[in-house]
């Protein structure tokens, strides 16, 4: 089914063995380059500009002045090697340039050449390189083989986060006119229409009506999926994949049932019908901000009191960590821009709130009637999505992002098992498709990068009879649906957490 080798799983080991190096094995794998039609709406040059070297160096200088992370991380790496075996893409491809430090060095070598004393006068000594076409090519390959999952940053003694370096590299490539088609095309859609699919309002309304009918047929209950309802209490921002993809859609039905059962008035917005924000993937603060501002505007127009975010990993990162900064969705602003929205939002709830936090609170308050036996045919494990785990929180305590989804799952399923400790929670392995890699032109790296997760999954399937892997990320769900079959596993074993909730919730039986 593929013209490359699918990595073998070794059920004896929790974490895959460190492979022998195969230099440049993946050098040839590059995503499609963005066409002018994808570049220009975002304000990037349509194609490689003539003086691209100079533009790239200038851009690098600009970013060094804007991001402390970039400046400190490019200076601080001591090449200790602690991160070398931590990246799933290295473990799955054996290509040393997929080791986090080597990936950083692709950019660092040019940084040193142009911005440091040692690199200017003793380039050979410190591995400094001029920015040539070959270097740009390498950047294009390997900075699109990083899912910005931050696993390396956990293990680095200085917290060097290769995701920050990848984002900067992608921003530089966009600035010289060599963007990635997948991300930039999607960003064009979200900025123009409001979601990554380019699904216009009538189609969205249609889809949701269809879903309402499905739920009615299934349960006999009128569960609504409202759009653009002014004065609703909650605005739900969810990844647009929830509107059409499997198993995402079952999760969406789950959220609707939770709102219905708890009696919370809620709405979607056709103007801001996307939680995913690919602006982060391409490292562009500006684009990320523009996409996020649609949500602010929708919240202001609809007059909602709460903003809740559906199951989506990178989206929850942007929402939890960046929305307050970008749009004022949050609390504690002392400026008019932030206060304008924050005065409207209900301070008794965290803003934004994750759907798992909301469901978990309702479960604690006994507001949902749940029948675990509906999921008795399942033995469930939970895949911690990389960006939820290492870039966000849920609840009041550090680590709530691990406990709360597990608690929700265990409230609706009797059979739950964790995968090996080195592969979950803070140490989780990325699904292999995050960070703007969820595109068919990168299938090879997606399949190979999934290997560490597949191996840990394989263990609990064999030892504990696990038949369901639950996830709270649209990208993880799509990626696993596609990749599981490569490892001879059933694609339907990937489930939304709120799909499990949906199956167990007893509608209408509220005490």
């Amino acid at each position, binding site marked *: 089914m593929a013209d490359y080798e699918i990595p073998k799983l070794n059920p004896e080991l929790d974490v895959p063995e460190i492979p022998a*190096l195969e230099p440049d094995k993946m050098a040839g794998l590059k995503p499609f380059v963005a066409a002018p039609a994808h570049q220009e709406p975002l304000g990037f040059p349509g194609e490689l500009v003539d003086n691209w070297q100079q533009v790239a160096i200038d851009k690098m200088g600009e970013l060094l*002045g*804007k*991001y*402390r*992370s970039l*400046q*400190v*991380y490019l*200076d*601080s*790496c*001591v*090449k*200790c*090697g*602690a991160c*070398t*075996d931590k990246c799933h893409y290295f473990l799955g491809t054996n290509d040393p340039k997929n*080791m986090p*430090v*080597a990936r950083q*060095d692709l950019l660092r070598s040019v940084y040193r050449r142009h911005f440091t004393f*040692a690199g200017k006068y003793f380039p*050979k*000594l*410190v*591995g400094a390189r001029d920015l040539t076409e070959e270097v740009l090519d390498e950047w294009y390959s390997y900075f699109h083989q990083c899912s910005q999952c*931050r696993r390396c*940053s*956990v*293990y*680095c*003694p*200085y*917290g*060097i*986060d290769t995701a*920050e370096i990848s984002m900067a590299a992608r921003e530089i490539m966009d600035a010289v006119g060599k963007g990635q088609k997948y991300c930039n095309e999607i960003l064009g859609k979200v900025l123009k229409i409001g979601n990554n699919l380019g699904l216009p309002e009538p189609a969205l309304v249609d889809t949701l009506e269809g879903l309402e009918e499905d739920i009615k047929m299934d349960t006999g209950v009128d569960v609504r999926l409202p759009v653009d309802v002014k004065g609703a209490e909650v605005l739900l921002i969810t990844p647009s994949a929830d509107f059409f993809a499997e198993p995402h859609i079952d999760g969406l039905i789950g959220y609707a049932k939770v709102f219905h059962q708890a009696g919370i008035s809620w709405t979607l917005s056709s103007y801001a019908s996307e939680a995913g924000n690919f602006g982060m993937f391409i490292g562009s*603060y*500006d684009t990320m901000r523009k996409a996020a501002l649609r949500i602010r505007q929708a919240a202001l127009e609809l007059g909602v009191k709460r903003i809740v975010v559906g199951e989506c990993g990178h989206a929850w990162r942007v929402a*939890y*960590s*960046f929305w*307050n*900064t970008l749009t*004022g969705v*949050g*609390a*504690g602003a002392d*400026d008019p*821009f*932030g206060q304008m929205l924050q005065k409207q939002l209900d301070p008794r709830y965290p*803003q934004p709130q994750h759907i798992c936090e909301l469901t978990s609170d309702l479960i604690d308050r006994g507001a949902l009637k749940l029948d675990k036996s509906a999921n008795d045919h399942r033995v469930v494990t939970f895949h911690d999505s990389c960006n939820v*785990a290492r*870039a*966000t*929180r849920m609840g009041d305590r*550090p680590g709530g*992002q691990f406990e709360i989804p597990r608690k929700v799952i265990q409230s609706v399923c009797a059979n739950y098992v964790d995968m090996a400790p080195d592969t979950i929670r803070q140490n989780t392995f990325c699904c292999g498709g995050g960070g703007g890699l969820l595109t068919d032109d990168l299938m090879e790296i997606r399949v190979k990068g999934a290997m560490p997760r597949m191996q840990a999954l394989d263990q609990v399937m064999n030892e504990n009879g696990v038949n369901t892997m639950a996830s709270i990320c649209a990208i993880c769900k799509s990626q696993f649906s596609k990749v599981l079959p490569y490892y001879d596993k059933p694609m339907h074993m990937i489930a939304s957490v709120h799909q499990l909730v949906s199956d167990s919730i007893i509608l209408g039986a509220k005490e």
Partner: protein
Amino acid sequence: MSLLTVVFALLFYVATLILIGGLAYRIRLYAKTPAPLKIPTMPAPTTKSGVVVRMASEVVLFNSLFKSNKWIWIFGWMFHFALLLVVLRHLRYFIEPVWTWVVLIQPFGIYAGFFMVLGLLGLWARRLFVERIRYISGPSDHLILALLVAIGVSGLMIKFVFPTDIVAVKAFFLGLMRFDLQPLPTDPMLLVHLLLVAVLMIIFPISKLLHAPGIFFSPTRNQVDDSRERRHLAPWAAKLEQGND
């Protein structure tokens, strides 16, 4: 005053200037470069005092490195803490009268010299023999290790094989600090040792040794996890807001 004394005096003045000036420049650069987004590696502390504890456990115990790789941790920690003891031990050449605690740690400082070299050799062995670490090592990575080993070994040699007149050495350094030059002994091993230390001081602010101040400025380690509770806005990002509220 011999030429040698003058040359070494000048060398140490220049090295000190470069070390202090270079570090100050770098630290200022890090401090004034904004961190526009909240990016702590989670789970992260939700309070400032929590961040102090996290940072202390990184700086003192190399917590993340411990999670990551026990061999690098053992050698790395051994080297750094031995180095710390050795440096503290050397304080006695720069203060008069010598503080009691500096007197008390003298014997430990001597053993630390051996552990320092041992730790360095361990790290170097990994760099040479572990394929993936060899792959990421450049010439400067080997040279810095060589420099540090040479400093350690030459120091131990002075202590155990080729003793020098340490009273005179102390007088030289006290003299440097008071701008009153005193003759430096001419034992070759001492001169090698001092020369290498000066080289280390000079390359410090222009090399990866910047990890020392760098860690304190690392946003993934020094940020508080409070993005929902507080609006965090960099000055350049705030400018984008003008005109659209």
